């Protein structure tokens, strides 16, 4: 075999790329995983994972230099001293905002699987049937039954802790034991159950293992996941899929490999490989394979397609549908309510739970009908205030200090995560006038939320207030802190799945209609956004697609 020829190429090493590599190599395919950034080695390179607060010169905060260097990252909690090196260098990799768009990226082995929020939920048929029933966009080409066994497959390996709640809109999975609610959350959950037929507050389902699993240590409740976990207690490429893929002996990993295009063969109508620009040397290489998995994250996967096969389709591979780069979706959030829980002064917690509660969607389900379509879920938690609280009646001195060394009142907050609809003209394009560090064209974002989302945000605030008040909380206040598309860090939809090559980029097995040996299985594939955190769905779609690809290779169909 030529040294640049493999059975399979995986572009990207994040959540879905790691899964593609694991499944392909375990099925015996010699696979190369191409990652545009540097390597981050499990545990060894988690630089601040064991740092105490006082070991960080700015105690985890942000300096003026950081604010200047990371103008996008600084728009949210993401800019901080503790894991700054996991976020993309914005000067090297700029993009164009035709409208405000927050793009938080991780360019390294593991991608955002290192920093992700770990909330892991299945979609249901309410989601897969939604576009068809509402008559918008296109119908998902699959239903829950198609994906259910693959959800199980990925849950069992990744290790998802959660409770089996028996809710049709949030199907149960193959879970590890759930984490626990705290005393306030339990009481609020019980009161919500009493007050509402279809509203439930459940413990978050999270990719943190609660039992030892595949040489990984169960969660130690440090709540420092996004620094990288020395125990391997949460799912990441490094902790889970990469070691499994490496163990097969079939994996080659190549960092600093920017895939600039998929090499398309006009005669066979197949991809024959990819072109790689070495990010360190600026040398160009070609790699060849029978099948290509594109897992560069939703927007960058679209970018790769836009740069590919332009001699056949000027707008790129997959553009014959007119949908490549369109239908950009995210989850809109930063609206909800919070309040004070009284009567729990004699209660406290032990340990730092890297998880919260979840209220699955209830709007526009079970006979409910609003002046918008779809719905939202809530994430949140209850806890006691710490030393940073205001004590209005006190000024300075010993009593003030001693008061701050005790915990403050219990508070609880809920933040809605709302579904955004797939609007055709929410779109990304190549801006060839602006180049990145390597002279490559950058993406331009033209995305905004519309009336449907704005109306939903009003419910996201008011419903949270009502539920918390009915649950007995005091001083309940709503908030809407505004939202830029992308801020949910759930980019989706830029190469959607569908039933018709005229209106979708991918078919029911995530194959590019115009090049069936190219599979796209990250957020780009999503036909609608639902309101659940999407990563678990990418994992399941990836495992399912690999199974399909290997079967098709055997049948010599691709």
């Amino acid at each position: 075999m030529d040294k640049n020829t493999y059975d399979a190429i995986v572009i990207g090493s994040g959540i879905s790329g790691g899964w593609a590599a694991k499944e392909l190599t375990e099925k015996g395919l010699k696979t190369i995983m191409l990652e545009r950034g540097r390597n981050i080695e499990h545990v060894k390179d988690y630089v601040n994972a064991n740092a105490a607060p006082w070991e960080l010169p700015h105690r985890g905060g942000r300096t003026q230099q950081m604010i200047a260097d990371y103008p996008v990252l600084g728009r949210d909690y993401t800019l901080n001293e503790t894991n700054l090196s996991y976020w993309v260098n914005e000067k090297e990799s700029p993009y164009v905002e035709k409208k405000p768009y927050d793009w938080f990226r991780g360019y390294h082995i593991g991608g955002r699987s290192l920093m992700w929020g770990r909330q892991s939920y299945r979609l249901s048929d309410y989601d897969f049937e939604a576009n068809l029933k509402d008559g918008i966009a296109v119908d998902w080409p699959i239903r829950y039954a198609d994906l259910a066994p693959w959800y199980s497959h990925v849950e069992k390996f990744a290790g998802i802790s959660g409770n089996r709640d028996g809710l049709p809109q949030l199907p149960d999975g193959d879970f590890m034991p759930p984490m626990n609610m705290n005393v306030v959350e339990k009481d609020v959950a019980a009161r919500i159950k009493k007050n509402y037929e279809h509203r439930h507050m459940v413990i978050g389902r999270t990719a943190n293992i609660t039992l030892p699993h595949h040489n990984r240590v169960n969660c130690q409740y440090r709540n420092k996941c996004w620094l990288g976990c020395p125990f391997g207690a949460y799912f990441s490429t490094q902790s889970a899929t990469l070691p499994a893929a490496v163990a097969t002996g079939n994996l080659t990993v190549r960092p600093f490999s920017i895939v600039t295009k998929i090499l398309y063969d006009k005669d066979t109508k197949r991809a024959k490989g990819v072109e790689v620009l070495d990010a360190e040397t600026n040398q160009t290489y070609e790699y060849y394979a029978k099948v290509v998995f594109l897992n560069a994250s939703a927007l960058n996967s679209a970018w790769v397609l836009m740069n590919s096969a332009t001699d056949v389709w000027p707008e790129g591979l997959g553009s014959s549908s007119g949908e490549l780069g369109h239908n950009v979706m995210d989850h809109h959030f930063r609206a909800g309510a919070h309040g004070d829980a009284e009567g729990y002064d004699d209660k406290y917690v032990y340990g730092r739970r890297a998880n919260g509660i979840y209220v699955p969607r209830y709007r526009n389900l079970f006979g409910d009908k609003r002046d918008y379509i779809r719905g939202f879920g809530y994430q949140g938690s209850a806890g006691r205030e710490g030393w940073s609280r205001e004590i209005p009646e006190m000024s300075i001195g010993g009593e003030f200090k001693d008061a701050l060394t005790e915990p403050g009142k219990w508070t609880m907050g809920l933040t809605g995560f709302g579904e955004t609809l797939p609007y055709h003209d929410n779109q990304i394009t190549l801006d060839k006038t602006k180049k990145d560090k390597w002279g490559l064209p950058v993406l331009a974002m033209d995305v905004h939320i519309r009336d449907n989302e704005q109306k939903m945000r009003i419910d996201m605030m008011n419903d949270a207030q009502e539920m918390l008040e009915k649950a007995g909380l005091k001083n309940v206040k709503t908030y809407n802190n505004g939202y830029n598309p992308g801020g949910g860090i759930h980019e989706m939809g830029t190469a959607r799945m569908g039933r018709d090559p005229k209106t979708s980029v991918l078919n029911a097995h995530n194959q590019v209609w115009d090049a069936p040996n190219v599979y796209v299985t990250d957020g780009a594939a999503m036909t609608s956004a639902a309101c659940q955190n999407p990563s678990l769905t990418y994992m399941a779609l990836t495992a399912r697609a690999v199974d399909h690809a290997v079967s098709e290779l055997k049948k010599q169909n691709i």
Partner: protein
Amino acid sequence: MNRRDALARVAVLMGGTVIGAEFFLTGCSSPAGTSEKAGETAATKFALSPAQMSLLDEVGETILPTTKTPGAKAAKVGAFMNVMVRDCYKPADQQVFLTGLTKLDEASQKQVGKAFMAADPAQRMAVLTKLDTEQKEFTKNQRKDDPGHYFRMMKELTLLGYFTSEVGATQALRYIPVPGRYDGNVPYKKGDRAWATS
């Protein structure tokens, strides 16, 4: 910090955000395409003298004095403020902070007839209590983007520097690097120390 904590229970200091530092999530995004120019030159120029850091140690010790646990001086909050103001404050806020050192001494002269360092603990307490009232009033009427009050800066940095220091986190508060488990319902009695991190 994870996303739910960041969003649902926004970390705030004294009911607001840390002046100038954008230290914690502020809950508002900057408009697209705008980027603060770093105080690169200011950052390299800003440096407190040992005398100024000693003064700030004493200011900190008055705000958070030694009680049954060590005070802010033991956490070296003066040196901490030097780092934070140098690296995290905008030039305009650095100026307010620097001028504040002089204003603080002037206030001390006016109120107790001597410089802050020469005043006794009771006098220092009286001076800073008055300044704290002043900063609270100032902050209440402050418009967004106006520079903050120097004493609020000093108080915030004292709290931040102390409670995240080894002394503060492990003696005034409780810090367990690896809790190993989670219990969401443990008894609490008045006087038990809070956890240093959440």
